[in-house]
């Protein structure tokens, strides 16, 4: 049965983007308001995806032919892995629009069009069940983000945006070759059909390399991470939130969704390599974050470290760890999203992001201080908040078979606490450094409203993760079936 909900969630923002682009003489502020309404409506429309009892299989499926001559189908559907990611995307978009009131004052309409086009592409990535369609959405979300970074970003925006695109595309063109080979070898690009197909071990090894190349660049896994700090530092706040909150998850999502079930033998074979890279990423990312003086760079490198945990959880090939990894994708979206929003807010006031320029904000901006502490605690995994559940599940899941990797990774948690608390200390406490500190207003209502949904979810997921985990777990189990068989076969 075809369900049109997902198509609506994707095409709705796209139609709105077209409307805003084509509406003659639409003033900037009405355009932004319209975008806000559309993104809120999209969020509301996407909620049923999460509320349906998923039971591990794909729901809300839509399967119609698109370009028959080229074997491309428009096949959408979500399960317990993708539904939370779709909702995370639709949740972050209205917040990004709200945040844009603070920092986007020029070419607002274009910004709105780009955001909406990007939203459609990102939801499509998580909902596509046809490999070619997945590729189309993967690339489609890229160009708007390129323009958002390149038009609205900082001084070195053109360079950073180009670097971001070239890194991603270098990976994704290999992915395209891989997809085409899969189609040639199995005669289908449909995810459900592919799970039943069997590829030889040799084929799997090559295909795994092609797919993993695209996804590891996107995650980004060390040593493919160098584009990330540049992109984050130059991107406007909204761009950073989307980049960290959603687009990085496309990489880890791709690894879990495609690499494990489609190339199980190769995944098992290469798991030690991926686990090593993940641990290196966790520690190296954390050490780099510790050494930074630019606020955005600290968070950017912390993303490298946190996404390392997710990859670790996925390639532990164990359901607790993989469930934790999926939850951690959501957690990272929430906490890093909040941190980038907060940094954006302070940057709008201070026009600097150097840690050394700040101090003593706890006295002058108490609301900001509370929010920052809250987001930081979520990010470093304080028990009672969401980050703890994800990291804990990943670590205990990994511990069973990969004790060394798990113990090294837990060092990363410690390092995370060090650099994040260092950031909090530098910003909030100590003597006032910047001469204009007193003139910076505390957070206003709009800014509080932007952050509130994220904080509410951090608490909710921290205290009651069960409903979400219950949905994630069966879906993750299905992704792990094939690799398990491959392990037993060995």
């Amino acid at each position, binding site marked *: 049965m075809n369900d049109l909900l997902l198509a609506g969630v994707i095409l709705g923002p796209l139609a709105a983007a077209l409307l805003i682009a084509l509406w003659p003489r639409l003033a900037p502020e009405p355009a932004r308001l319209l975008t806000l309404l559309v993104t809120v409506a999209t969020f509301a429309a996407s909620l049923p995806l999460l509320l349906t009892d998923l039971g591990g299989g794909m729901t809300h499926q839509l399967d119609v032919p698109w370009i028959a001559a080229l074997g491309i189908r428009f096949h959408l559907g979500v399960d317990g892995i993708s539904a939370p990611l779709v909702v995370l995307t639709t949740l972050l978009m209205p917040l990004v629009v709200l945040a844009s009131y603070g920092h986007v004052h020029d070419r607002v309409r274009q910004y709105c069009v780009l955001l909406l086009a990007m939203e459609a592409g990102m939801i499509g990535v998580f909902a596509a069940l046809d490999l070619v369609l997945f590729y189309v959405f993967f690339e489609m979300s890229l160009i708007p983000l*390129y323009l958002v970074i390149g038009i609205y970003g900082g001084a070195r925006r*053109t360079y950073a945006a180009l670097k971001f695109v070239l890194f991603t595309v270098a990976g994704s063109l290999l992915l395209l070759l891989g997809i085409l080979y899969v*189609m040639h070898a199995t005669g289908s690009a449909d995810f459900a059909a592919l799970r039943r197909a069997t590829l030889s071990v040799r084929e799997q090894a090559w295909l795994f390399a092609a797919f993993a190349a695209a996804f590891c660049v996107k995650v980004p896994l060390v040593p493919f991470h160098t584009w990330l700090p540049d992109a984050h530092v130059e991107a406007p706040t909204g761009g950073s939130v989307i980049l960290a909150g959603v687009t990085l998850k496309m990489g880890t999502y791709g690894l879990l969704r495609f690499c494990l079930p489609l190339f199980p033998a190769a995944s098992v074979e290469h798991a030690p390599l991926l686990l090593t890279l993940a641990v290196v990423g966790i520690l190296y990312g954390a050490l780099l974050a510790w050494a930074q003086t630019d606020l955005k760079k600290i968070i950017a490198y912390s993303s490298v470290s946190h996404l390392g945990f997710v990859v670790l959880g996925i390639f532990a090939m164990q359901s607790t760890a993989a469930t934790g990894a999926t939850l951690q994708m959501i957690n990272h979206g929430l906490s890093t999203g909040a941190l980038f929003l907060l940094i954006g807010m302070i940057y709008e006031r201070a026009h600097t992001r150097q840690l050394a320029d700040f101090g003593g904000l706890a006295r002058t901006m108490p609301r900001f201080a509370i929010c920052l502490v809250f987001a930081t605690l979520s990010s470093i995994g304080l028990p009672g908040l969401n980050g703890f559940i994800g990291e804990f599940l990943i670590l205990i899941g990994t511990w069973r078979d990969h004790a060394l990797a798990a113990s090294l990774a837990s060092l990363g948690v410690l390092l995370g606490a060090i650099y994040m608390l260092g950031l909090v200390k530098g910003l909030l406490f100590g003597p006032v450094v910047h001469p204009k500190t007193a003139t910076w207003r505390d957070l206003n209502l709009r800014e509080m409203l932007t952050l509130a949904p994220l904080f509410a979810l951090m608490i909710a997921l921290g205290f009651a993760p069960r409903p979400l985990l219950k949905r994630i777990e069966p879906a993750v189990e299905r992704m792990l079936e094939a690799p398990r068989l491959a392990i037993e076969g060995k």
Partner: protein
Amino acid sequence: MDVAADLAATAPLWLPMVGCLAVLLAETLSPNRTGKLPALLAGATLALALVRLATTSPTSRQPFGVLADDALARSLTGLLLVIGLAVVVMAEPLLERLALARGEFFALMLASLSGMVLLVAARDLLVLFLAIELLSIPLYVLAAFRRLSSPSLESGFKYFLLGAFASGFLVYGIALLFSTVGDTRYSALAALSRDPAHLGTVWNVGCAMLLVGLGFKVAAAPFHAWTPDVYQGAPTPVTAFMAAGVKTAAFGALLRLAIEILPDTASLRTGIAVLACISMVVGNLGALMQTNLKRLLAWSSIAHAGYLLVGILAVVAGAEAAARDAVVFYLASYSLTTLAAFAWIEHLGRETPALQDLRALKGLARQRPWLALALTLCFLSLAGVPLTAGFLGKYFVLKAAFELGTALLVPMIVLALTSVIALGYYLRVLATLYMERPANEDAPAPLLFAPAGLALLTAVASGALLLFGMWPAPLLRWLAS
């Protein structure tokens, strides 16, 4: 042989020829006072030929024993006629503005076009040679059509010298092939090439020389050296005609050779693969350095010749049906894209090098968002970004090449990796349009010259890129019929 039926079947071929004569006649009867008449005559004959093409269906007959009337010939003929129409729309305002001889221009253009149409139908090596000369000689003149502009003269002269050289290779190759078979008809040559054991050195050298001759016409590296100068110097409508028309016609001929004659030998595979890889690498690296839009498109056309050669390679290696459709679709999407891009350049009246420079386009998106969007679509399509026709072309070629498993993996990986380089310079154009500040913030960039016809052509062509990228079914159906 039924001459009347043959003539009826080849109407799209001789109609442009008749148009050419009609234009010349009009010009002789009333020199320099014909106004828009040549353009109208040219447009009318091309439209008539298109109608004729649309109302008949392909047959297995071979008009005059040396031509084809099959689906391949007809779909490429249709494409060439559309390109011709677009060039008429593009050229008329320029000729009027520069007060150039319009009658001569359109007569030459139609003559060249009939050569192109002949080329995609040729099933005899001598007809192939005739068609290439008929295509080329008027084009040499057209490239140098702005007699008082030295870049245009340079362009025509360079094209002529190197073109004549390439013709030498072609005719020598034909002679060698003739010497092995004693016949120039494809059917006779095909009979021999089916049995590779009989193919000697002479045959191989003949094939290689044929490839060199056609490689020059399609601007494949290492026979590409003329391309940037000729593309830049020629009047923009002529450049568009060269980029879209010559490429379509010469690749059409190559496609037919690959289907009918060229044997699947290791040396030929290697040869085409090397040409393809060199073209992709040289074209894309060359484009990386360019700041002039027309030169940039010239280098990118070299790279696209490389991508297309991967399709030809797939045909030679055995994935005939799929690769043929892929190459035809690629030619259609590439032609559409280049036509849109050159129409865009012409629309802005950018005939002088200073205005074709990328720096003159800084911040255009701020002042003229729709114009910027049109060029953006062209470059995204050239780069092969999904949802544009250019992506489907590349996808189609790669999919066809994978029909042979991993046999062509090396050229395919080169294709993928050089596409990353390509994105580097295509996105630089976008960055110039969107991310930089205009030189003069207050005054919009001057539209020197923006006739309605060109605006329409640019809009339709770039819109079609997006439309066919999302919904290619009509185009595929049209090309298949």
